[in-house]
């Protein structure tokens, strides 16, 4: 799973019917220290995350196992909002 920062929202009116009433967010992966790196991705939000929060993103076919995502055409889901990352030096 990826650590990512929410950097924006995505709105799409015309979409697969199974995606209706799901919130789309724009996320950018971060390293454990919180520095953004890599490319942007669009993920379905299942935990009411918001812009600026650090979240946990599950990708690939496992994304369909997120709550309420059965049989939906998704490959990235936000499944947690990160409180702390503890990395002993």
């Amino acid at each position, binding site marked *: *799973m990826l650590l990512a920062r929410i950097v924006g929202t995505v709105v799409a009116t015309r979409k697969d019917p199974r995606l209706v009433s799901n919130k789309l967010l724009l996320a950018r992966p971060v390293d454990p220290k919180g520095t953004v790196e890599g490319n942007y991705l669009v993920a379905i939000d299942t935990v009411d995350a918001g812009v600026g929060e650090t979240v*946990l993103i599950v*990708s*690939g076919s496992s*994304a369909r*196992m*997120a*709550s309420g995502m059965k049989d939906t055409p998704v490959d990235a889901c936000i499944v947690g909002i990160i409180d702390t990352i503890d990395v*002993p030096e």
Partner: protein
Amino acid sequence: MQLARVIGDVVATRKDPAFEGTTLLLLQPIGSDGKDVGRPLVAVDAVGAGVGETVFFVRGKEASFPFHPTEVPTDAGVVGIVDHFSATDSTEPPIPPIRHR
């Protein structure tokens, strides 16, 4: 499956209900020489591993199988704690077997 070092703990209060009771670990994948390879990732722990341990983890939907029948939405899971491992340097040519007749 891949080798990794557990480098940290991840705490999330608001999460998918299927994660309740599981531990989230921060892993740094390593190569055969024990050096870091690629980016750190978050994985669900199925074996009780902790920070500083060398583990092996599985990627993909299979990472949720240890928690069956609960469908934990994870794409990475720690499935073993490594006691020790050894590897020959892959840049060296393999030593041909000696046959005695």
